[in-house]
């Protein structure tokens, strides 16, 4: 089992520009160090499930319109698996569709945020999200076999 560098945030976003802007916004509040980006649903699920012990993430920022496997499917799989259902998932999307909202909450999403178009609003939103989920929110204790081994 590989001992991975700690990742706090998984950003699942297909647009490279939205990705870049998000990372820039996270950088402004010093949260850009432990971020892993996935460009489609398959990559996102691979990152989480390829190892028997899923990474202990502080939050997953999930876009809905992802190629290969879409955001709702990823959400469904995350919340259906005992190992990952406790990881906070924040849907970060352009869609304001009532149906997307309804289904996301049906599947157990922790929060649903619409990406602002205006840049300053966008920066504010991302940093608020980052600071809240990474610093303020508390998660149950993790069991990290490789760290324990180190000790």
């Amino acid at each position, binding site marked *: 089992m590989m001992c991975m560098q700690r990742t706090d945030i998984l950003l699942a976003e297909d647009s490279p*520009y939205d990705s870049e802007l998000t990372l820039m916004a996270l950088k402004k509040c010093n949260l850009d160090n432990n971020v892993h980006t996935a460009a489609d649903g398959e990559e996102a699920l691979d990152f989480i499930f390829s190892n028997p012990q899923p990474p202990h993430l502080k939050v997953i920022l999930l876009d809905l319109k992802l190629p290969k496997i879409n955001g709702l499917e990823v959400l469904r799989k995350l919340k259906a698996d005992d190992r990952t259902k406790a990881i906070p998932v924040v849907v970060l999307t352009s*869609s304001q569709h009532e149906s997307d909202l309804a289904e996301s909450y049906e599947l157990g999403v922790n929060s649903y945020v619409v990406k602002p178009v205006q840049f300053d609003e966008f920066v504010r939103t991302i940093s608020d999200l980052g600071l809240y989920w990474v610093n303020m929110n508390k998660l149950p204790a993790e069991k990290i076999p490789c760290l324990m081994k180190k000790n």
Partner: protein
Amino acid sequence: MEEYHSTFEIGRDIMKKVMNEKTMKKQRRDLEERMKELQCLYSITHVVETPGITLMEIFRKIVNIIPQGLQYPEITGVRLVVEGEEVKTENFRETFWKHSDKIVLDGEEIGTLDVCYLEEKPEENEGAFLKEERELMAEITERLGRIIERKRAKEALQKMNLTLEKRVEERTRQLEDMIDELKSFSYSVSHDLRSPLRAVNGFAQILYEAYADKFDEDGRHYLEVVRDEAVRMGQLIDDLLVFSKLSRQDIQAGEISVNELMAEVIKNLQFSEDGIEKIRFEMNPNLPPCIGDLSMLRQVWTNLLSNAVKYSGCKQTPVVEAGFHTDDKNRVVYFVRDNGAGFNMRYYDKLFGVFQRLHSPDDFPGTGIGLAIVRRIVKRHGGRIWAESEVGKGTTFYFHLSSQPPEEAEKQITLSAHS
């Protein structure tokens, strides 16, 4: 005791009695025959009025009813031919003792009714068929003509209705398809356009922040334009989406306390409108309640009040009033009045246009969709909105909702929600 003068007289009396008996018997028999004929005609009428019965079924029943109206039903055969189609009783056979009548529709002969006695009748009569029987058959034939005419008219009507129904179905399906297309179009706008817009917006801003000092004045100006117009484009798209959603949303009608709604709107405006602290609000505390969709009407009051606040900010003592009066048709007309910049009534017809503005964005920001949204909502509630203004003095917006009395208004609203 009568006096008889001779055997002749006795004989004559006896003869009279016998003759009377015979006549009575005949008369009774005739009466029975008439009853049978009437019964026959009645049965025919009854058959014709059976709901859903077809013409062929009518014919089949009639040919079996007719013998019952004649003297010797067991040896009567009936055949009906209408436009080449033949319907007959099982026992029908062309014989010497035949009576035929033509069936006429619109002056044209379309068929015949043949009645045949299958064997010689047991009694001596005038010809094979009695006069009464011939009259009965003539009556039946005439009725058949009319029956056929009516039935055919009915069937033509039903066919037309079916074609019409099919066309309505098709048209409805086309409209539903169009609505679905529009829905997915607006989804596409909201989703797909916003992403590149966000990028243009974001990177223009980042470029400006990071490299403005490396640009000369012209370069900085160009960057500012790109950034500002990207911002404006975002607002326009958002506004368009709100506007287009309005037509497709279902109205959820309920009774609304206008006073409460206004108080809520004003409280919210404190956060979004600059300079609102300066404004003196004069709200009539007794605004009558109305019937309508709460979120839509909230939008109406928000837009009207925020406009009033915005356009009166330039004055020293800005005042925004809200109230109502009853018009000559007993309708409640609400109004919002400000003492601000006002507009030139010459351009009144542009007032409610989409993205139409009567002021420069430098003086008063806005995309020009607020009033278009208000008007659409008021219209969907069956009402009307209009305005009066004078440049430099101020503006008053008047509107009323459904012109039906409140009990009817709800029905009206639900109906128009699907128009």
